[in-house]
């Protein structure tokens, strides 16, 4: 499999490269020799139907699933990601579709879950964590005030901003957003769009996962389309139309301006 798949940065080293990744669950090949890459400041949309394998592929990168085969390279060097802690150590942060929040504790506790700030006595420094939480939430969602309440009391949009805040709090270099706007209203969706543009400017690479092309097309620089665990093809969003991408998603048909993947049919 060649490196730099359909990317505009010929010769440059990608921030992340996933090569030939495979994983099977009880005989079903959820991801079948899939490869994707991502450059700094780039947004790559990972598209496909429900069950196409995109979430699974990305969970391998975030350390939630162990892969059966393939390589992961960060800045050109092969790395071992065995659990979520490893991924975080490489600056990979994930916003899961389910948000993965502990509903019974407050926003600050969720933001720092697994990475708590401690006092010199080794106890939780709740005040410092709340201060940081107020800072980052002030940037994302200035109207947010409910710092003392468990996150289950928050609205969908507020919960989403907690999940996003957690991902950007620790200076992520690689951000994975799995259906980030699925639970949001139009206003909040626009907010997330603004945030993505801002993060892009900071040189963060973003994988944007969605089954809805409209969510992704305007924000992404490139798309990679998956079907039945395989990559159908890669394309710059400037080179293809929405209809062509839709054809990739639904039929697995690779248009002429896209780069063919192993999963393309015709």
């Amino acid at each position: 499999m060649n490196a730099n798949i359909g990317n505009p940065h010929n010769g440059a080293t990608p921030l992340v490269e996933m090569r030939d990744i495979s994983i099977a669950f009880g005989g079903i090949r959820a991801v079948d020799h899939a490869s994707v890459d991502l450059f700094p400041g780039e947004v790559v949309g990972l598209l496909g139907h429900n069950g196409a394998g995109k979430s699974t592929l990305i969970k391998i990168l975030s350390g939630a699933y162990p892969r059966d085969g393939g390589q992961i390279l960060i800045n050109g060097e092969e790395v071992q990601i065995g659990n979520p802690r490893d991924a975080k150590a490489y600056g990979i942060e994930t916003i899961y579709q389910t948000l993965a929040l502990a509903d019974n504790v407050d926003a600050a506790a969720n933001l720092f879950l697994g990475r708590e700030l401690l006092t010199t006595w080794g106890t939780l420094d709740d005040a410092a964590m709340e201060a940081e939480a107020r800072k980052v939430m002030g940037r994302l969602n200035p109207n947010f005030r409910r710092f003392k309440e468990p996150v289950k009391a928050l609205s969908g949009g507020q919960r989403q901003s907690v999940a996003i805040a957690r991902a950007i709090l620790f200076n992520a270099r690689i951000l994975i957003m799995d259906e980030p706007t699925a639970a949001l209203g139009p206003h909040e969706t626009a907010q997330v769009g603004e945030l993505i543009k801002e993060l892009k400017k900071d040189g963060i690479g973003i994988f944007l996962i969605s089954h809805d092309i409209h969510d992704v097309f305007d924000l992404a620089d490139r798309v990679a389309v998956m079907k039945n665990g395989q990559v159908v093809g890669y394309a710059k969003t400037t080179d293809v139309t929405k209809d062509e991408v839709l054809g990739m998603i639904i039929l697995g048909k690779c248009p002429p301006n896209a780069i063919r993947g192993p999963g393309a049919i015709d």
Partner: protein
Amino acid sequence: MTQTQTAITHPTQDREGPVSAFLRATEIDARMLGMFGALILIWVGFHVYGMIFNGNGAFLTYRNLWNLSVQTASIAVMATGMVLIIVTRHIDLSVGSVLGVTAMITGAAQVWIFPKVLGLGLGHPLIWILAVLVALVVATAIGAFQGMLVAYLEIPSFIVTLGGMLVWRGAAWWVTRGETISPVDPNFALIGGGPYGSIGVTASWIVAIVVCVLIVLSLFSSRKQRKRFGFPRRPVWAEVFIGVVGSVLVLGAAYVANNYPWPVGIVKQYAAAHNITIPEGGLFVGHGFAIPVLVAGAVLIVMTFIANRTRFGRYVFAIGGNPEAAELAGINTKRMTVMVFALMGTLVGISAIIASARLNSATADLGKIDELYVIAAAVIGGTSLAGGSGTIWGAVLGALVMQSLQSGMVLIGFEAAMQQMVVGGVLVVAVWLDTVYRRRIK
């Protein structure tokens, strides 16, 4: 900083009654208040019932309240651990049996092994220390072992501990083939309370004052912390209120314990041993806090600290709220499960020490059906069986409620069968009330 300024504005509700305004300002949980109310109702209820039907209200006496505190200690200690077990969506049905086997091993060690095999001789001060260590190590190891079965072999905790309940009860019998070990080491027995196992009037006042100072200091430090970052704070009157109520409760407990006199016989024995002449009209020697009560108090403080101020406690609640999220956040949930069960074991060890010391003997039946009282205490104290929520304080209050019912019914002369029925009924009603409360607060 604009951030701090916006942060200070407190979200004010439009319509707010004086009660909810008071609760919000003091940040007192309405549930907690309800439990205190229930407790007072039970106490006064039994007292008045006794006055009317038996001619004397035996409940609200120094003697009974002191006894109540000692009787609650063992269950209360275990209930604090059960909170964490239930919060992480597990259950431990084996605590009563583990208490039994631990007490038997500890009893055998201090009566048969340490004095003879180690040649320490009876009553050597090392014996009780070694015995305490044995109890803690044995119970912690059993807890950790069961935790490993739950975490790594993925056997449901209900099954592991249901099996454990039978296995460890059987093991308790096997330690001595059913023989009761009595009496235990005299120093060890002091941990169970009694006249000599209490710290006396002066020491009790000192303990109470120290606790009051700690309450005030902790209020100050948390206020200072919030000030440092410019967060909303409680109004000063609310802080003063909490400090005063807390201190009054602690000092009141000391007052009650100090006013329960030693029995005349013990006073005579003590006076004879210390060459004191008993004055006309008898010598008053107050009990003061019993040692098991102080142990339970220390456990309460330490466990509250663990639950609220440490990473471990934070992870326990996060796992209970969403195990998958905790795993994705990089928490080693399997190791946490083992640690929670091991901690439960340690607390069972402490309870085994208290229970066998109080009885001055170890029997294979010690702690039988304690698991149900412990779970009931945690649940009455507001621990949700669905996991994710519960307080250490609540469980201790729950244990006190259970024990108050039990003792109260004994005092007014209910039959044993009736007592069981009432306790069972109260458990069901308490959980129902809690469900109603939770639904309304949503």
